[in-house]
């Protein structure tokens, strides 16, 4: 019997399949913002402190948090960590899409928590570009998710054009 795949040590990996080093530190709410950043702030703390802070920060967003509340501080945010406490909780997908298409956020969106191979395709489409992935073969998982579907019916936050647009192109060609 094979090993349960998700029991592998989580790996931070980018959407192009390269492993990356995590330069960010998640601050506990009682920790002070010191000199050795960059820091990831909890959502409530970000809302309170970002108005008075300069520089670039990360923010940890949990499923119930309204990402639009951070709209005024987009230029101070370089990383949004979207937490999936359980992979069945799909609110994080809306969070990412709002960031990309409504708030025009260009920074990193990182999926953390219960992030599994079978969710990667959806996450990539919604605008996630980094993953703390629980998989024994993270590169293989990224490749599988990237290659699995050539096209998609609907537009989202990735580069795919919806199938209706591709059909139109074929007709025009």
């Amino acid at each position: 019997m094979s090993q349960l795949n998700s029991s592998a040590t989580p790996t931070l990996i980018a959407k192009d399949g390269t492993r990356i080093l995590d330069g960010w530190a998640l601050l506990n709410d009682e920790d002070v913002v010191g000199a050795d950043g960059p820091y990831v702030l909890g959502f409530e703390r970000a809302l309170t402190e970002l108005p008075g802070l300069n520089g670039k920060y990360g923010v940890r967003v949990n499923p119930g948090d309204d990402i639009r509340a951070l709209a005024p501080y987009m230029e101070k945010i370089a990383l949004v960590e979207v937490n999936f406490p359980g992979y069945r909780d799909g609110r994080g997908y809306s969070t990412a899409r709002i960031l990309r298409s409504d708030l025009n956020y260009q920074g990193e969106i990182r999926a953390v928590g219960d992030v599994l191979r079978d969710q990667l395709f959806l996450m990539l489409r919604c605008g996630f570009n980094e993953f703390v992935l629980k998989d024994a073969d993270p590169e293989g998982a990224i490749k599988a998710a990237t290659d699995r579907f050539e096209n998609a019916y609907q537009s989202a936050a990735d580069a795919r054009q919806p199938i209706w647009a591709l059909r139109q192109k074929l007709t025009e060609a």
Partner: protein
Amino acid sequence: MYVYDQFDHALVRERNAEFSDQVARRLSGELSEDQFKPLRLMNGLYLQLHAYMLRIAIPYGVLSSVQMRKFAHIARTYDRDFGHFTTRQNLQFNWIKLADTPKILEELAEVEMHAMQTSGNCIRNTTTDQFSGAAKDELDDPRPWAELIRQWSTIHPEFTFLPRKFKIAITGATKDRAAIRVHDIGLHLTPKGFEVYVGGGMGRTPHLGHLIKSGVPGEKLLSYLEACLRVYNRYGRRDNIYKARIKILVSALGPDEYARQVEEEWNTLDQAAIDAPYYEIDRIRSFFPDPAFADKAFDQAALDRAKAADPAFARWVRNNTHAHKRDDHVSVTISTKPVGLPPGDASSAQMDVMADVADSFAYGELRVAHDQNIILPHVAKADLYALYQQLDRVNLSTANAKKISDIIACPGLDYCTLANARSIPLSQEISKRFADADLTDEIGELEIKISGCINACGHHHVGHIGILGVDKQGIEFYQILLGGRADEKAALGVITGKGLPAEAVPAAIERVVRLYLQLRTSPAERFIDVVERLGRETFAEALHEPA
């Protein structure tokens, strides 16, 4: 009907390859059951009481003779020679091996079918009027819109892990045969655009949907739905499975506030990127032309002679045909509910006959109705007797459409892990009680709907007579609801009287029906009309054995 192009084919093939890989990883132990379960559900695979059950999508209930024959083949090859048509216009097989599933999905793909999103917390098969494109009272054909929604909702990256399942229904006729008020979203297609009803549903806490917007133009439908879904995905409850449907969110916020949030979200969306433009809508619409109607000479006198010579045929014509937009055609209901047999079941032999008669008499097209019957949408009146005779040979000629023995029943505790009580045996006993076809005809239109648990897959809330099975310390008990209806005057039935043991139910229903026959002012006054005129309490006493 819609025909796949290279993109549709590729997507189904890719999805099957993905699921095949997931099945292999589950078998090898790389995936746990907990991780695999939502993945298999999203591909239609349940683990039920006896085995795995595979639910195959029949998009908006439309299928070809070729697809019906494929079902027969799957029933013979991979299952126990029959399948079950469901209230959501789908088909399920009850004894499917996990390891066979990829092969079955491959076979389905050959005939442009799949099992995607027939379960799981995602957007399910959109359902619609079984007489779409054929009915005399239709204003516009809902099928192209249902196909548009099918494509938009398939593997939607944002809405695959919703708080709970999500069901959309569309009607384009004056009469609502799609039960739009008891769906998460109900769409009424009118000449002025779509009326959008949200927050209907059955289950533990039944609600009728609220009209939140009128006049949504077709070319903006998808972005409006996307806004509806996004508000639900973000704010629908996830702490309690029984409170996770959109009806709970809409009633907690109030329909006006929900509508306001949707409007706000709609305005932030990049509508041009989401909404398929006219040419795509026209392309899809081009797949739903009228068939090349045969101009067969119709001889009314010959039909009348056949009816006079064969009273059973006359009854079948009277009960199981529906007015068609062409006077020389009708739509035909093939009842899957012969007296004493499980509603919705069809053997492979019956499926083959249905495919054959569709080819011979109905331009190769069939439909599955939400009442679990099969429809031939376009049949020339000249062919009715020949059609009837072929159906009659395989016990598919029961003349009970919309009658008291045309019972909707969920699979219940004979198959379903969620059920508390059996549904089908009760439906059989009731149909035997009313086996007399003359009595059935005298009673007229009467819808009985039976669910084996509170999840209400048998639609008991909207039965003229609804029956809900409950478990009382190991004994199956049944609560009776009166006064529900799913049509354009949708209403929820109310529990009337005390719960009854199974053996007492058929007699109780007969007493209620006999009372109705006494109370009606004319045969035109249906059971539901009398319940509404006199109140359901009028019937409460009749439910119980006279002391």
